[in-house]
C-alpha cells in the first residue's frame, strides 16, 4: 500500500474522533467516513478527469469543474475543516498557513493565502479551490481563474447556510452520502441544544468584539447573529452596516449597553479594553461581569464545528450575572 494512503486513513481516523467528540456530546451521531477506493491515490489522482460540468457558486460565478475532482484545496481554514469532514482527505493537496484543524492538516503542504502564493498554488494544479466570501479577494480569485484554477466561493449568513454549504461540497465532490450523514448529525445536535430550557427573562443582548483599537464588532449581517440567536441571545448590534464587522465608537456602545460582551476574559479586558475605554465600564456587561472569552477558531470558522460554537455561546449566556 502506498504510504500516503496509509497516512490518509490515519488522518481521517483522527479527524473523525475529534468530530465525534464535538457532535456526539450534543446527542448527534457522526457517520464515519468511508475510505475511497485505490483510485484516489496520488498516481491516479494526477490523471485528468474525464468529464466536467458547469456549476454556479454562492456568488453567482459560473465555473467548469470536473465531475469528480481529484485534487482539491481550500483557502479558508473553515473550508479546510469542511473538506476534512466531507471529502476524501487524500484528495486535499494543500492547506493555508492558518489552517490548523483537524491536527492531521499539519502534514499537508502550505500555500500562503495572504499574500496569496500563486506560484505554489498553481504548481499543485488543483482541480478546484474552495473558499469563503471575504476571505479570498475577488482579485486573487480572478487571477487563479485566468491561470486555469476554478475558485468556488461559499457565503453563509445562517447556521443552516453552513449545513447547506457542506451538502453542496458533498455533491461537488461526489460524497453526497458522507455530507448528508454529517449535516444530519449536526442538525440533530443543534436540535438537542435548543431543547434545553432557556434561562428566564428576555434574550440577553450580546456584543462580540473582534478588535479593540479601533473597536470592531460582529455586525448584524454575520453568522454570529444567527449563532447567538440559536444560543438563546441576540446580537446587541441591530443596525445593519455595509461592512460585516463595523467599527463602533464608544458612544455607540454606551447606547447599545449590551448585557454580555464577548472578546476576552473579564480580568483580561479589564486591564486592557476597559482601561483604554474606562467610560465603557458603565455597560451592563461590565457591571454584571458578563464579559467572556470565546474560542477563536470556533467563533470565527463557519465549518463543521459550528454547533460546537453555538454550544459554547449557550454555555456563556447561561452564566449568571455577578454583582
Amino acid at each position, binding site marked *: 500500500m502506498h504510504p500516503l494512503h496509509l497516512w490518509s486513513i490515519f488522518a481521517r481516523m483522527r479527524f473523525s474522533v475529534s468530530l465525534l467528540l464535538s457532535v456526539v456530546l450534543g446527542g448527534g451521531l457522526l457517520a464515519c467516513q468511508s475510505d475511497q477506493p485505490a483510485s484516489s491515490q496520488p498516481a491516479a489522482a494526477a490523471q485528468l478527469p474525464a468529464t466536467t460540468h458547469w456549476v454556479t457558486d454562492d456568488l453567482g460565478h459560473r465555473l467548469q469543474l470536473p465531475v469528480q475532482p481529484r485534487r482539491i484545496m481550500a483557502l479558508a481554514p473553515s473550508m479546510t475543516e469542511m473538506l476534512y469532514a466531507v471529502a476524501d482527505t487524500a484528495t486535499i493537496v494543500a492547506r493555508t498557513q492558518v489552517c490548523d484543524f483537524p491536527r492531521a492538516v499539519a502534514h499537508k503542504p502550505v500555500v500562503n493565502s*495572504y499574500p496569496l502564493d500563486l506560484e505554489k498554488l498553481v504548481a499543485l494544479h488543483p482541480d478546484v479551490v474552495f473558499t469563503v466570501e471575504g476571505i479570498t479577494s475577488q482579485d486573487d480569485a480572478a487571477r487563479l481563474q485566468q491561470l486555469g484554477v476554478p475558485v468556488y466561493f461559499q457565503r453563509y449568513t445562517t447556521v443552516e447556510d453552513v449545513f447547506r454549504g457542506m451538502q453542496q461540497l458533498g455533491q461537488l465532490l461526489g460524497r453526497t452520502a458522507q455530507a448528508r450523514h454529517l449535516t444530519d448529525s449536526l442538525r440533530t445536535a443543534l436540535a438537542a441544544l435548543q431543547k434545553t430550557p432557556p434561562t428566564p427573562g428576555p434574550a440577553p443582548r450580546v456584543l462580540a468584539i*473582534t*478588535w479593540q*483599537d*479601533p473597536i*470592531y464588532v460582529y455586525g448584524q449581517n454575520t453568522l454570529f447573529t444567527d449563532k447567538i440567536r440559536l444560543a438563546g441571545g441576540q446580537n446587541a448590534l441591530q443596525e445593519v452596516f455595509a461592512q460585516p464587522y*463595523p*467599527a*463602533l*465608537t*464608544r*458612544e*455607540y456602545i*454606551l*447606547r447599545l*449597553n449590551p448585557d454580555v460582551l464577548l472578546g476576552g476574559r473579564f480580568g483580561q479586558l479589564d*486591564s*486592557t479594553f476597559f*482601561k*483604554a475605554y474606562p*467610560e465603557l465600564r*458603565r455597560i451592563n456587561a461590565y457591571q454584571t461581569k458578563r464579559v467572556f472569552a470565546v474560542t477563536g477558531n470556533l467563533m470565527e470558522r463557519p465549518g463543521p464545528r459550528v454547533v460546537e460554537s453555538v454550544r459554547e455561546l449557550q454555555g456563556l449566556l447561561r452564566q449568571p450575572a455577578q454583582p
Partner: protein
Amino acid sequence: MKPARAGLWLGLSVGLLLGLLVLGLRVGSFAIDFELMRRVLHHYDPTEPAQLVLVELRLPRLLLAVLAGAGLAVSGYLMQTMVSNALADPYLLGTASGGGLGAVLCFALLPTLTWAGVYLPPVAALLGALGTTLVVLALGMDRGQLRPAPLLLSGVAVGSLATALGGLLTFLSDTPDKLRTVTFWAMGSFERAGWNLLPYPAVALVATLVVFAFLQKDVAILLLGEERAAALGVPVVRLRWLLVVTASALTGCVVALCGPIGFVGLMIPHVTRWLLGATGRWNLLVCALLGGGFLLGCDLLARLLYPPAGVPVGIVTALFGVPFFVYLLRKQGS
C-alpha cells in the same frame, strides 16, 4: 494689513470655531439638544448616559480635533517659514513616518499595548516622531547650521526608510488585525480622545503661540528669504533651530495622539497668508484658529457621512487638500 481687517478675520475664525463646536456637540449616537447642554452646564450628572457621553466623549473629541488642527496648521506655518518655501508641511522632517514606525514597532513587537495603565502606541509614536526628526537634523546639519536643502533631502530619505521599515514590520506581522490597526492609525482618528490626552497638545500649542508671539516679526522676515532676513539683523541660525524644534515637538504630539493627518499644515498657512498677508501680526493665531476649525469641520463631515465611527479624518482632509495642493503647484508654476 489693516488692523480692522485682521480683527475681522480673527473674529470670524473664532465664530467659525465656536459654531462648529456647538454643531459638533449635537452629532453622534445619542441625541443631544441645547436643553441637555444647558443642564450639563448647570449641574453635570454623570449617571445620565447622554450627559456622560457629552462631557466625557464628545467634548474631548472635538477639543482634540481643534488642538490637532491648530497644532498642525501652526507647525506648517513655522516649517514653511523655516525653509522659506510655501510648499513645506509639518511632516517635512519625517515626523509622520517616524511616528508611524514607532506605532508599528509597538503593535508588532510588544506583547502588551498597555503598561502601568498607559496605552503605549501614542508614546511609541511620539518617540518615533522625535527620534526620526533628530536623525534628520543630525544628517541635515551643516557645521552647526540648518540649511533647508540638505535638511529636506535628509527628511525625504529618513522618512522613506522609516516608512519602509514600518511596512516590513507590518508585512511580517503575524495577524492581519494588526495591519488594520496600523492602517486605521495612519489615516488619522480622534476616537481615542479623552480629557487625559488633551493637556499634551494644548501645552505644546500654547507654548508655541506664546514664544512666536514675541518673535512674529522675525518669522515674517525669514519667510521673505534667508539673505534678506540676515541683512535685516534676524538671527537666522538660532531662529531656524527654534522653529524646527518647536514645530517638530508640536507635530510629534499631534501625530502620536491622532495619527499623521495630512494637508492641514499645508493648506491652512496659505489660507492665512491669503487672508491676512505674509507679514500679519495675528497670522499665527488666525492660522491656529482656522486649522482647528478646519479639522473640526472635517471630523464632523466624516461622522455625518459615515456614522457612527466616521470615515478616517485623514481621508477627508486629503479630499480637500489634494486639489488645493495642485492649485498651489500650478499657481507657483505660472
